[in-house]
C-alpha cells in the first residue's frame, strides 16, 4: 500500500494549553484508521488542521508526497470531512446545500447524493435549521460521500446518531468505503465503535500518538477488549 498522508512534528496550542505536540503519523491508502482519544485530546484539532480549517503552530503535512500548507485548497477536493458538530448554513435547504457543495467537487456524484438522502430519510426541501442533530450528521455524511473522497475524516460522527443508523453506518458505509479503496480516519472516544471496522489503531494522549499499530496485532498482543487496552494505554501514558 502506498503512503497517502504523512504528518511530521505537528503541534498546536490554544492559548497556553498545548493540544498537539510533535505529532507524527503516516497514513497508507485504502485502510481504515481508528483514532482513539479522550475528550479534549486533540482529535478534532487534528481533523481541522488536516482540513485547513485552522492553522498548525508547527510541523508539516504531506499529501501524496506534496507538502500542504494552510490556505491551500485544491487538495481538499480529495478529502471528505464529517465533523463532530455539523454546523451548516441553517437557512439553506437540504437540496440547496447539496447543489452548493456539488460545485466544489469535480467527482461529485449526484445520484449517490440522492440515494443517500433517501437512505437517511432526509427531505430535500427541508430547511437545515429544522433538522435534528442526527439528521444533520446524516446530511454531512451524504455530502462527504457524494464528493467521492480518497480520504475521509470522520470526527466522532456516530455519537449523535440513533442506534440503528449507527449500526447501519458502521456496518455498511465504512465497509463499503474500505472496499472501494477509500482511506478512512475515524476519530472517536467511543471505543467499542471501532472494534468492528478498524484496521489500524491510533491512540492519542497528551498531544502525541502513544499507539500506532495494526488492530489485529494489538488484540493479539494484549489479549483484552479494546476498551481495556485503551484504558491501560492511557493510564500508562
Amino acid at each position, binding site marked *: 500500500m502506498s503512503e497517502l498522508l504523512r504528518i511530521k512534528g505537528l503541534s498546536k496550542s*490554544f492559548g497556553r494549553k498545548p493540544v498537539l505536540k510533535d505529532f507524527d503519523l503516516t497514513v497508507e491508502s485504502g485502510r481504515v484508521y481508528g483514532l482513539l482519544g479522550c475528550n479534549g485530546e486533540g482529535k478534532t484539532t487534528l481533523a481541522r488542521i488536516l482540513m485547513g*480549517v*485552522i492553522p498548525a503552530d508547527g510541523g508539516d503535512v504531506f499529501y501524496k508526497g506534496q507538502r500542504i500548507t494552510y*490556505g491551500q*485548497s485544491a487538495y*481538499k477536493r480529495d*478529502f471528505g470531512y464529517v*465533523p463532530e458538530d455539523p*454546523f451548516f*448554513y441553517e437557512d439553506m435547504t437540504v437540496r440547496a446545500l447539496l447543489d452548493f457543495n456539488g460545485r466544489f467537487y469535480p467527482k461529485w456524484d449526484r445520484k449517490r447524493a440522492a440515494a443517500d438522502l433517501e437512505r437517511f430519510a432526509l427531505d430535500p426541501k427541508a430547511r437545515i435549521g429544522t433538522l435534528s442533530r442526527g439528521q444533520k450528521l446524516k446530511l454531512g455524511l451524504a455530502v462527504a460521500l457524494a464528493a467521492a473522497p480518497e480520504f475521509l475524516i470522520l470526527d466522532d460522527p456516530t455519537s449523535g446518531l440513533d442506534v440503528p443508523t449507527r449500526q447501519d453506518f458502521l456496518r455498511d458505509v465504512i465497509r463499503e468505503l474500505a472496499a472501494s479503496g477509500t482511506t478512512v480516519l475515524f476519530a472517536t472516544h467511543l471505543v467499542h465503535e471501532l472494534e468492528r471496522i478498524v484496521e489500524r489503531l491510533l491512540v492519542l494522549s497528551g498531544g502525541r500518538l502513544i499507539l500506532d499499530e495494526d488492530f489485529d496485532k494489538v488484540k493479539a498482543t494484549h489479549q483484552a477488549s479494546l476498551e481495556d487496552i485503551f484504558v491501560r494505554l492511557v493510564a500508562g501514558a
Partner: protein
Amino acid sequence: MFTTLYFKEWREKALIFTFELSILAVLLGAQFFLQQKKDIREGLIYAVLLLFFPFAALILGAAGFESENRQEAWAYLFSRPVSRVVVWLAKLAALASMFTVLWIIFLAAWAAFPAVRELASGPRVLLEYVAESGFPWWSVGLSAFLLIVAFSLSLLRARQFNLLFVALLLGLVFPAVAWGLIISKVGGFMAWLAPTKALRTLLISLVLMTLAFVGASLLTLVRSDHSQPRKQTRSFAGSLVLFLVLALGGTVATALFIPVPGDHYLSLVTSSGDNAIYATERGILTYDASSGRIRWLAKTRYPEYLLSSPANGRIAYSTLDIKGRRDITHEVWTVGMDGRDRRLAVGRGSPGPWDPARSNITGLMIRPDGRSIAFLTRAASSRSGGALPALWTVNVDGTGLEQRPLDALLADGTTENRWLFLTAWGRTANVLLILKRHSPQPGQSQFGLWAYDLDRRTLRKFEDGVLPASWRGSMSPREDLLAIKLSSGAGLGLPAKALAFIDLATMKRTAIVEGTDLVLSRVQWDPAGERLLFQVKRPAPEGRADYAIAIYSLAAGKVVAEESFAASEREAWMMWTAWMPDGRSILARDAESRSLKILDLALRETGRFDLPARIKEPGQPAVVGDQVLVVDGKTDSLWRLDLSTKRWKSIY
C-alpha cells in the same frame, strides 16, 4: 466557485437588501408626493445622503461574515476546497454590487429629476464653503468606507451590535481625524489655504484607509485561526495598525510630493544684470548668471505674492505668520540679494499703531536706497475693497513704523470696489506714486495717479485716467522716469489710449504715442534707460488691426523703429519681448514658431533659437548676462539657454 459563493451571498443577504431598497424607494418616492414642501423634501434628501447610505452600507458590511459566525458555519465553509481569498472576494463583491445597485437607483433619480439634483448638491458637511453643484461623491465615498470598515470587522467573531457600533465609530472617526489633521496646523491649514489639495488629500487618505481595512481583513482571514476569536482580533488589530501607519505615510507622501494644479508656481518677479528673481510656493529664489547657480533669498512656509524689485541690493517681501485659523498676521521682511541679512520689518510684535487685525497687506515697495519700505494694508475681512485702506512706512530694521494719512485720496467717499496700488518711488524726490482704481460697474474702471510726498507728508492727485505703462517695466533703470499710459476706461491689462513718461523730479509728462493707436501693456526700458520698447495696435483696412513692436528713443524724441509682428490680438499677446543686457538687441518669443528671436535696434531678425519640445508652455523670457531664462508654465520648471553655446538646460 466564485460565482457559486457570490450568488450564495446574494441569496443570504437578499432580505437586508430588499429592506434597504424599500426604504430608499420610500425616501425617493416621497420627493414626488411632497412636491410643494421643499423643506421636507430637502430633509429627506439629506437623510438619504447623511443617514440612509452610510447606515445601509454599515448594515450590509456587517452582514459579511455574519452567517458563518452566527451559525458556526465557518468551519464547514473553510473545509470546502475553495480558497479563502475567493470566499472573501465573493462576499465583498456581492455586498459591493448591492451597494452599487442602491447608488445606481439614486443616480437615476438624480439624473432624471432636476429637483433631486438641486437638493442633493446642497449639503456640504465637510466643507465650510458651498462647492459647485454636482453629484454627492462625498456621500458615496463615506458610505463606501463604512461598508469596507464594517465588512472587515464582520470577520471578527463579535456580537452584531458591538460590531455595528465599532464600525460606525471607526468609520466616522477616521475620516474626521483625517479632515481634522488637514484643516489644522499639522496639515499646514491645507483645507483653507489649498482647498483643492485638501479634498484630494482627504480622498487619498480615505482610499488608503479603506485599503488598510481591506488588507487587515484579508490577511487575518487567510492567516489567522478563526477558532480563537481573541487571537484573531489581536491579529486583525496588529495588521490594521501597520496598514494604517502605511496609509498615513502614503497620504503624507502624496500631499508632499504629488502637486495639484496651482500647488507649485514659479513666477518671474524681475531681472537685471546677472540676476533674475522668481517667486515660488517655497519662497524667493534668484538665479545668478555669472555663477550659474540658484540661490534662495528666503524660504518661507506661507509665502505671499508681494515682492518688491531690488533696491540698493535688497528686496522686500511679505509672508504670512499663521498660528491658527483665526490667528494670522502678515509680515514684511527684507533680505540682501546675496541671501544674507534677513530682517523682519513688520510682524506680530511690531509697535502701535500697527494692528494685526488690519494687517492684510495689499501692496509693497522698497525705497530706491533700500533703507525703508512702504506698504498698503486693508482690513482682513474685506473682500470687495470696501474697507478703508492704509499706507504705512517703516525702516528695514523695523523702526519708524508710521501710518500715513490718505484722507485726500479717500475723500471722494467711494468705499466699494476701490483698490490702491503702489506704483513707483522716486529716487531724486522722495515721492511715492499711488494708483487708485475704482470700478463703479463690472467691466468699467476709473484710474487716478496720486503722488505722496513722504518728506512733506502731503498727498496730491497727479492725474486722472493715468496708470503705469506695465507692471514690471514702467520705472526707468535710473528710477527717474515712469512710463504711463492713458486708460481706455476698461481693465488694467487692456490696450490704453496713449503712452507717455513722467519725469519724477519735475512731474512733467512727455507723450510718446497718441491718436488712434492703442498701446499694449508690454512696455520696457532698455538697460541704459534711453529707449522704450513697446507694442502698439493700429486700425487696419476692413476693420482689422495691425500689431507692431516699436522703439522710442529719448535722445531722438520719437519712435525710431517699428515692425509689424502679428495680425491678431491673441497672437500679439503671445509675443513676449526683453532687452538684451547690452541694450543693442532685443529678445522676442515667437509663440507661432516656438522660437526665441534676436532682433537688432531696427527690429530685424538677426538670430533664432528653437525652444525645446520639453518646454510645454513657455512664459516670458528673462535675459541675464549671456543667458536666457524661460519658465515652463506647465511644469513650473526653469530653463536656461546659454547664448554662447546655444544649449538649453533645465535648472529648476
